[in-house]
């Protein structure tokens, strides 16, 4: 067996968390956490360097028996779809550590342990090739995330943590039933690739589709099961918000890509109109809600609902442009919204208010901050030249090909996005300098700059030269569509 690179990537943060438990000083904890996450990112870059973009096959695979009596194996591997998210998770990992450097000042050790555990589990979700293993990673994430929101969150943290936990748990438990049903219909195996090759009767596919839909829709989140998200986002500490927006939300969409589409192709085709409508609803509804927010974090949270609507929209257009756009948009949303939450966190550390009404004229007080804020705001509204433009354009062109009405609704959502984002930026950065008088605002320091710059680089890189990213996705996306249409079109 080859060098277990993926296991190393997945379990290094976990090992780091174990080491942290024995450290005493807070600074040692911070530096160790940073070191582990940076090392993990380096491994991910090495992984991408060795990644073969010409094939849709799983790469870097590892297989070991785990519970042979039930056909459970420990199997890891990545293809073009998961590679991008493994990288995204590792990229945001060390940024989360930096974002919590001074923001978390009590129980630093516990926080970093939770953060690293979270990272290990998230990486595991994207690498797992065994459904049981996937579920273990997927569900185990609830524990550290519950603690992160509940212990280090804002005033309403306990309520938010409970809501997050119970929503996700209820969704995932039905998914678990679906997994076990799939196990018995698919020849008593949890091997994802073997299950993908199964041809299930349509009735079974329909049931499973909805069982999976509930779990994934809660995570994405899609309207109407989105209500946990604003609470969780607003109450979570900055790093928690970055993880939630950057990675956790992607898992729902990843679930559609990895399970619903290839395993249940006929049902996916049959219900695609429903999914497109739900996505369009999320885009418009999320946008409208964002328009009415005064709290910065809530605004970004609702904009996430809208943006994730674009992702599911792209996926369920079930054509190549839409699908690739959706996947790319997942990555983009992770970078851009992660950055926006980071920015909200940075300013909140200084002023301890998130109300937009309290701000104004920030440009004078913190020019560098506002300049980068402008970049990420424009990226979030998909200005040409930024990453989201590429993704949204692909999604929209796919959407118009699939369903005219849904495409039109999505465009409306994009317009709404411009409205609330520009409105937010105007109120915060421009206008009379009301803030300068009330708060002493210092501009970004070197540590914060280190966290911001890579994200800014990716915004422009994907925006100006998206080819390397699309290349990674391409082969796997084509193969996925072939799976859906190849069997789905038949009688």
């Amino acid at each position, binding site marked *: 067996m080859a060098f277990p690179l993926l296991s190393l990537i997945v379990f290094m943060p976990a090992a780091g968390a174990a080491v942290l438990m024995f450290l005493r000083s807070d600074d040692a904890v911070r530096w160790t956490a940073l070191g582990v996450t940076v090392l993990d990112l380096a491994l991910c870059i090495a992984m991408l360097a060795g990644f073969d973009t010409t094939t849709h096959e799983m790469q870097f695979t590892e297989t070991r028996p785990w519970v042979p009596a039930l056909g459970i194996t420990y199997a890891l591997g990545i293809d073009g779809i998961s590679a991008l998210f493994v990288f995204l998770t590792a990229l945001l990992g060390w940024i989360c550590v930096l974002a919590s450097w001074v923001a978390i000042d009590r129980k630093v050790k516990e926080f970093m342990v939770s953060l690293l555990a979270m990272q290990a589990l998230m990486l595991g979700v994207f690498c797992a090739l065994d459904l049981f293993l996937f579920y273990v990673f997927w569900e185990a994430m609830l524990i550290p995330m519950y603690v992160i929101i509940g212990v280090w969150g804002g005033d309403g943290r306990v309520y938010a943590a409970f809501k997050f*936990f119970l929503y996700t748990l*209820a969704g995932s438990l*039905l998914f678990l039933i679906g997994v076990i049903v799939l196990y018995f219909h698919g020849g008593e195996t949890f091997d994802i690739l073997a299950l993908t090759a199964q041809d299930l009767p349509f009735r079974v596919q329909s049931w499973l589709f909805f069982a999976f839909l509930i779990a994934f829709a809660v995570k994405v989140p899609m309207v109407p099961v989105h209500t946990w998200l604003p609470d969780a986002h607003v109450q979570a500490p900055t790093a928690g918000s970055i993880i939630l927006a950057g990675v956790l939300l992607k898992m729902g969409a990843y679930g559609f890509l990895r399970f619903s589409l290839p395993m249940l192709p006929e049902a996916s085709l049959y219900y695609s109109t429903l999914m497109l409508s739900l996505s369009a609803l999320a885009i418009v509804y999320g946008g409208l809600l964002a328009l009415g927010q005064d709290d910065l974090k809530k605004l970004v949270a609702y904009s996430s609902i809208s943006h994730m609507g674009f992702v599911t929209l792209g996926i369920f257009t079930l054509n190549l442009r839409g699908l690739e756009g959706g996947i790319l948009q997942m990555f983009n949303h992770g970078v851009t919204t992660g950055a926006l939450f980071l920015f909200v966190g940075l300013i909140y550390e200084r002023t301890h208010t998130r109300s937009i009404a309290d701000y104004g004229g920030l440009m004078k007080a913190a020019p560098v901050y506002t300049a980068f804020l402008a970049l990420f705001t424009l990226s979030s509204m998909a200005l040409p030249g930024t990453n989201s433009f590429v993704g949204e354009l692909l999604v929209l062109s796919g959407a118009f090909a699939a369903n005219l009405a849904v495409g039109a609704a999505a465009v409306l959502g994009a317009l709404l996005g411009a409205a609330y984002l520009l409105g937010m930026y105007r109120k915060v950065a421009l206008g009379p300098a009301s803030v300068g008088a009330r708060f002493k605002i210092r501009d970004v320091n070197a540590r914060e700059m280190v966290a911001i710059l890579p994200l800014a680089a990716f915004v422009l890189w994907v925006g100006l030269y998206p080819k390397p990213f699309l290349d990674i996705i391409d082969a796997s996306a084509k193969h996925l569509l072939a799976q859906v249409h190849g069997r789905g079109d038949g009688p």
Partner: protein
Amino acid sequence: MTDAALYQSILASLPEIVVVTGACILLILGQIVPKGPGHFLVWASAATVLVAALATLLLAGEVRPAHSGMFIVDRFAVFFKMVFYLSTILTFLLSRKYAEIEGIALSEYYVLLLFALSGMMIMASATDLLSVYVGLELMSLSTYVLTGFLRQQRRSNEASLKYVILGGVSTGIFLYGVSLVYGLTGTTQLDGMAAAVTGDPLDPGLLLAVVFIVAGLVFKVGAVPFHMWVPDVYEGAPTTITAFMSVAPKAAGFAVILRVFLNPLVAASDAWIIVAVIAVVTMALGSFVALVQDNFKRLLAYSSIAHAGFAMFGVVAGGADGIASVMLYLLIYTFMNLGIFGTVIMMRNGDFSGEVIEEYAGFAKSHPGLALLMLLYLFSLAGIPPTAGFFAKFYVLVALIERGFVILAVIAVLLSAVAAYFYIRIVMVIYMREPERAFEPALTPSVRATLALTAAGTIGIGLFPAWFLRLAQSSVFGG
């Protein structure tokens, strides 16, 4: 009975003989040896259990029917006996300090636990309704007394009295069912009864008899509608005894239920509908009522009702996987439930009762390690991976869905989502509140050992379930 048969019978029941003899000797020694070095009793009792465990393992190689068909040693019995040994030894370890604090460190305490153990062992090996009854009574009588061991406390006395009366009635009902079976079929052997029960058309008298027997057993596992004693008794009894009762006698009850009801003949009948209804109602009641509990012991009582309901789903599933899933569930439940009880028992120190959930506020701040352990047990009880509690539930669900009971599986997981709420509420109190007091847990080496062992079981079985799964699967009788 020939000499050879007698020899075989004695050999087969050697572990039981060891435990009963040891208990009798300790009872006498406890009176002779002056009070003071009371600790020797703990070690002597634990040694007795270990010797019995050794004997059990040595005899585990083959199936040994004994005592004219009333008793059997098979892998199924051995598995359950191991669960009993484990829970008894852990109870001993937990009891040392606690019994001193509560002033109940008497020799009878340990002796009664040993008698209860021997009763449960007989239940696991019984193949005749009468030997079931002997084991059941031996176990019950010992636990009645142990429940009331806090003689100075009204709550304990009340619990004991309630338990005796309700337990007595349930045993009476059980015995009445047995007599009906004997009257109608002329046998009290489980095999004979199973053959008669599945005879078509079903004799209404026999049906009544079966219902009575079920009622008596369901009482022991604390399932609805015979659950009313559980919260009061669990709250009133010394916490160590509560911990013991929540795992071992429950497992013993399930051992008998499995033997009686998963006889292939019975399993083929429609008896599963009754069990399914009991399972759903039990789990629903346990989960919903636990939501509003403030007392830790009462909450764990309702939680144990809910878990009995979940394990009952494995009985509904039946078949080799169904039986194995119940067995694995009980083993894992032993680890995690004794773990959480261990932390509650440890908190009992000085004035601090450790019984009110709110009093744990901010415990994580001063004792991060212990709080992490509690978090582990609680998430395991809630069934969140990668803990063992998840795998236990997962396997029950697999067994259910294998038999096509998808709707039941959906009900089971939705109810366990409800149950998750009250477990994580405790986590919330521990982690997310500010401390209002200083905590001084009575962390003796034996409590440490218990916590270490239970934590290892809770996380170890969760990460590497393969060996334990194979153990449970190979211990299923007739499969």
